[in-house]
């Protein structure tokens, strides 16, 4: 068995992994390697052929593959090695990374590990939709890969369950490909996707969006023949007399993403039950020193631009760790208060620099004011014209405001 050494091993070569590698390199670490199980780097971006990426981070509007290509070039120009078709099978708390590829099993002793495995889709099994098990039921991302990368036509008459961005994007994509999208159903009373996607993916194609509505039965033996949909009450129970049958040959499920944290868990790294990602500090360091996490494996993002930024913090944090720069006794916990589902990072370990807190709200709100407080003391505030669970919020707490903090800090929102 081969045993090699690297300063920083990055698990995953998607947008998070590549940005972390580039940031670590630029922070002075020349001994970085990226491991990825696919035949090409780029992760999920390679199947996201629609545009809208990079406006925030790169100042131009790109498609997914173009955004990935920008980072691939950054990786290539720095001669950072990328092992493709290499699947990491375990990460140990003492930072031995075990991977497997066509050459056999590879063990790498790292000084720091950055976890950037991304997330995967929730599937039909997680929903308990009753009915038969015909072909034609896909997770939206699977259908996206089949259509966009492999050129299959997955269906002609489509119902989409879930109005997250992937569901909306696929509604447009299937329409472009000549399919008829009969409906997008969303169990919640609001869409989980960006408003711009409702406009350009549904309204442009006259696709109806049914809120507080779900699929309650799947019909068909060999191939999907139709679905029964129904409105739901406030407890999300189907309302009997709203049941309706829609003939279709394809059902796409866009019903949530799960950070892919099997490696994280097996390394004994504590996971936040709300984000389903690791508990981290402001450098994206997990509770196991020297192991970092960033991108969708840490928290599911809505914009790749923010994935890249988070990964850069992880990359720089890993270099700081290797250089032994981390020696503070500070440990401030962050808490989610009223209207806030979670706050990330969960701990702050330094008062030397401003800290950005990322959060999601519990439900759609109009005009709100976010406040970061320690007891009665207000550390930071910011106002927004509207806030929705589908859009991540960011509040920066100044280093000067952190100086006097001793206990936990809480982020609340106030409806204005």
């Amino acid at each position, binding site marked *: 068995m081969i045993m090699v050494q690297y300063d920083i091993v990055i698990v995953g070569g998607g947008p998070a992994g590549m940005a972390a590698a580039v940031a670590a390199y630029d922070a002075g670490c020349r001994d970085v390697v990226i491991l990825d199980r696919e035949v090409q780097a780029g992760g999920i971006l390679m199947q996201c052929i629609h*545009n809208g990426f990079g*406006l925030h981070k790169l100042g131009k509007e790109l498609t997914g593959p173009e955004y990935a290509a920008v980072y691939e070039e950054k990786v290539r120009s720095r001669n950072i090695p990328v092992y493709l078709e290499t699947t990491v099978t375990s990460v140990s708390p003492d930072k031995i990374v075990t991977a497997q590829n066509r050459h056999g099993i590879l063990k790498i002793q790292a000084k720091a590990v950055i976890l950037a495995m991304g997330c995967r889709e929730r599937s039909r099994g997680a929903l308990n939709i009753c009915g038969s098990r015909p072909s034609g039921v896909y997770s939206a991302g699977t259908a996206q890969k089949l*259509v966009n990368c*492999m*050129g299959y036509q997955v269906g002609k008459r489509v119902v989409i369950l879930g109005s997250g961005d992937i569901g909306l994007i696929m509604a447009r994509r299937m329409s*472009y490909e000549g399919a008829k999208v009969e409906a997008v159903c969303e169990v919640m009373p609001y869409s989980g996707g960006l408003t711009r996607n409702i406009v350009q993916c549904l309204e*442009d194609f006259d696709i109806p969006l049914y809120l507080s509505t779900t699929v309650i039965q799947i019909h068909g033996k060999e191939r999907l023949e139709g679905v029964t949909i129904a409105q739901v009450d406030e407890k999300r129970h189907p309302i009997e007399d709203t049941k309706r049958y829609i003939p279709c040959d394809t059902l796409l499920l866009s019903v949530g993403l799960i950070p892919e944290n099997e490696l994280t868990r097996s390394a004994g790294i504590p996971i936040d039950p709300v984000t389903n990602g690791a508990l981290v500090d402001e450098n994206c360091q997990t509770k196991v020193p020297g192991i970092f996490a960033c991108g969708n494996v840490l928290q599911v993002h809505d914009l790749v631009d923010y994935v890249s930024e988070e990964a850069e913090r992880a990359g720089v944090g890993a270099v700081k760790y290797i250089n032994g720069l981390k020696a503070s006794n500070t440990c401030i916990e962050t808490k989610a208060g009223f209207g806030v589902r979670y706050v990330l990072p969960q701990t702050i370990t330094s008062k030397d620099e401003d800290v950005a807190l990322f959060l999601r709200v519990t439900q759609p709100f109009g005009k709100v004011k976010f406040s970061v407080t320690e007891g009665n003391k207000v550390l930071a505030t910011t106002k927004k014209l509207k806030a929705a669970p589908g*859009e991540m919020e960011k509040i920066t707490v100044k280093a000067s405001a952190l100086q006097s903090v001793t206990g936990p800090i809480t982020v609340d929102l106030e409806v204005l």
Partner: protein
Amino acid sequence: MKRNLVCIICPRGCSLLADITENGVTVTGNACPKGEEYAVNECTNPVRTVTATVRVSNRHNTMASVKTAMPVPKDKMMDVMKALRSTQIEAPVAVGDIVLKEICGSDIIVTKAVL
């Protein structure tokens, strides 16, 4: 005439109000100049960037992703798709290579390299 719009240029998704008169379109609610341009276009000549794929004839089960280099009129989106359906390209192609020229007023360019 007044029209409520949601800007699709960036994820911020500003709610816009376009007031359409004989003298032109006045836009409010936009956080940046792109929002005004979007609303004026939307009321006069709505345009969209079309993103799609074309088959790579000399690679198994492989598609190259493509887009219109410029936004095309919204009612021409399906014409672009029709032109692409009958198009095949040969690898290798690089990002930015032109697949088709002047389709509905825009070139079609490659967005993913196929080696």
